[in-house]
């Protein structure tokens, strides 16, 4: 598993998208691609159990045939606007090897498209001068001239536990919520 080896690398910048098969999906009008080797399956958006006091981008946990796996909202992870689920909304179940264990995690995306093969001639590094690599983009796929696919680094996306609190959630952590709510509830009681 070539991707398992990649997972051990911590330097995101040195990591570039490789030619190969990608699962293409939609997020806020753009097309992205996950390396197919790290996609375990695609499931419909079923009931998600909310996990209180966790990162903003974590929607909760689901029961995947007996395994309790976290599900994150990729829109929130990418600091995009949250939208209500549609019929097309699905969970892509990803698998990646973190430094010490195998992580299975679900990612909610707007829509899945297809699996496509991107040869070396269709894969290029993200253009210099952008901050795309900060957005987990490790390559650009251009199967046709008009089409552009952002190739993603799964390991970097799921590694928000080690980065501390997710950037998207910064400044919006739970304590303020409580201070807002608690007096309100207290007045209710009295």
């Amino acid at each position, binding site marked *: 598993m070539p991707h398992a080896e990649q997972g051990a690398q911590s330097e995101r910048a040195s990591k570039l998208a490789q030619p190969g098969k990608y699962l293409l999906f939609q997020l806020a009008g753009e097309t992205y691609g996950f390396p197919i080797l790290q996609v375990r399956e695609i499931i419909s958006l079923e*009931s998600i*159990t*909310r*996990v*209180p*006091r*966790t*990162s903003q981008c*974590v929607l909760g*946990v*689901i*029961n995947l*045939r*007996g*395994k*309790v*796996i*976290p599900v*994150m909202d990729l829109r929130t992870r990418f600091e995009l606007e949250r939208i209500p689920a549609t019929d097309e909304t699905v969970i892509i179940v990803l698998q990646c090897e973190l430094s010490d264990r195998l*992580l299975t*995690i679900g990612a909610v995306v707007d829509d899945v498209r297809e699996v496509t093969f991107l040869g070396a001639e269709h894969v290029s590094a993200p253009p210099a001068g952008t901050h795309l690599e900060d957005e987990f983009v490790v390559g650009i796929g251009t199967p046709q001239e008009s089409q552009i696919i952002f190739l993603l680094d799964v390991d970097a996306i*799921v590694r*928000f*536990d080690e980065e501390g*609190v997710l950037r998207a959630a910064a400044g919006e952590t*739970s*304590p*303020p*919520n*409580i*201070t807002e*709510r*608690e*007096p309100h*509830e*207290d007045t*209710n*009681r*009295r």
Partner: protein
Amino acid sequence: MANDDARQLLDELSSLLLLCKVQNSSDLRAIFVSLGKLEQACKSEHWEIVSDAANLYRDAVRADASERMGELIEGLAQSCEELDGQIAWAQQAHKPDPETASPPREKSPVVPSFVMGGAINVNTAHDSAGEVRSVSRATEEVENMIDFYSEAQDAIDQNERLLLDHQDGELDANSIAALFRAFHTIKGVAGFVGLTQPTKLAHSTESLLGGVRRGDMSADQVILDLLLESNERMQTLVASVRLAIEASTSVPLDERVDDLCRRIDAAVSREASPEDQPSRQPAIATSADDDAAVPQRLASRSQGSTQIRDTLKVDVGRVDSLVEMVGEMVIVESMITGDPDLRHVRSPKLANNLRQMAKITRDLQKIALQLRMVPVRGLFTRTARMVRELSRQCNKQIRFTAEGEATEMDRNMVELLADPLVHIIRNAVDHGIEDAAEREAAGKPVEGSIRISAYHESSNLVIEIADDGRGLDVDKLIARGYERGLISTGQSLSDTEAYELVFAPGFSTTDTVTAFSGRGVGMDVVRKNIKSMRGRIGIQSKPGQGTAFRLVLPLTLAIIDGTLISCGRETYILPTLSIVESIRPKQGMVRAPGGHSQILQVRGKTYPLYKLSALLEIPEAREDPQNMHAVIVESASHSFALQVDDVVAQQQVVIKGLEKQLQSKIFSGAAILSDGQIGLIINVDEVVAIANDYGHSMQGVA
């Protein structure tokens, strides 16, 4: 019959040789070990020729990993055939006399000349190599090291059981032989991976045992102590190998090994001269004093030996995933049997099949959980050794008795229990049991007693550790409590509450700090560990009569008794063991003194009352003050009450870990409920911290 043994060993060896791949180090190691066995068997029958040949081959196998291995194996296979023929010949002759039964010299097995040469090279290289070899070198070497570790560890554990079983009596021939084999195995494997110290120690010990076996010396206390010490030293050596493997460093040298080897060797050579005899006399006398204990021990041992069954070593990960899968099946099963659509089907056949399925699933779950269960014996053996050691160092005579060693517990809990037991035992030996003079003055037998027992009680494992020492001094405890500000003056404590002080961090009543206890660290660790296993610990004590610790633990870490509570439209799980009671408070019982914090008063006791809805930001909670539920929970540090909408049910749940990505300290895990939904298990130890957090932020706002 030794001939049959030898042939069997040869058969084994031949098949190994047939299947052997030259590059595969574990194959080579198997051959190495097999040759060792052959050598051993032939040696005991005085077939020097065969055993010597086997020995040479062993050295050659060890020395030469690659280049000439093919050639060597070829030669070995040929020799095997010849040996087989010779043994058959010896069998035909049917002469019991080893001299005539041994194969004639001219028919001695073919040993390629390079094997002879290789053997010499090995020996010299070996001695100078030392233990500086780095384990990190090659993965193959690491694998060999890991094999060495697991094999040596097994042998050490087995030795320890044997030695402790016989610590007051004489070692019988069978035990000596078993010990001899175990040390021989260690020597063989250690030699193969090139660890000099374990090899050397095993070798010395082996010669000591050899002397005992030949009858050159008797297995008295001195020898027993040496054997115990040797086994313990081997344990540390093996442990350091493990550390070295894990850290990919080189195996450190232990300078105490040389000293021990010298003493063992001295004991072996000393046996020839009889003037040493008197010095050992007292040791023998004390062990003879122990007569009363011997029949009991023998009885328990014979009981134990009948329980030895064939076992299979299985990777723990596999067992864990099996247990997990079975847990899933139980849930799916209950989903099917409880399916409303199926209920409408009026079919006796279906009903019958469903019942059948339910029964099989339950049985399967039971068996699957048992797979991970191990007897507490191993843990008790360690405890016995510790009592022995400590009593000697403290100069106290202590009799250690263990009951219920066959009681089983989750393998994963054994390690977690080891530390608490160490602390409890240290306290018992050091503080609990009085010294001989004090005991005599109190009219007690000079010999103190520590009793450890294990048994199952409902769905819990109970371990009790009782001593017959001086007991806890309540007044002293309370005085210390005041001193350390743990209790406020004027506060009156019941005896049980006073005992609880023992678990406060840094608490100690002893005025003298010894090497073993008195520093006040320990008992808080005990309680923390027990709590982390979702267990409870209690103390009973009578002045002058002793102290007893009672540990109540869940049978397994995989399953807990959960209480399902609901709040809003969400369901959470509280570990039932941590729940004291659940009540429907009447209005006067809830007080809100400062505005924000609430207090629940139950039968004169007060608890902080936290709203689950606020802690977990649950929308749509009912919050009906007329009709509220409060669950009183006991955590490691505090007791508190949780306001919930409803207490739904109690059920056993299979615990699933949560990914780190969830960053949710407040949940210790999750479980899949009978409707397939996920219930998060609340970590009661974190509730207070989180409630305090929001309490502080409240103050900031106010």
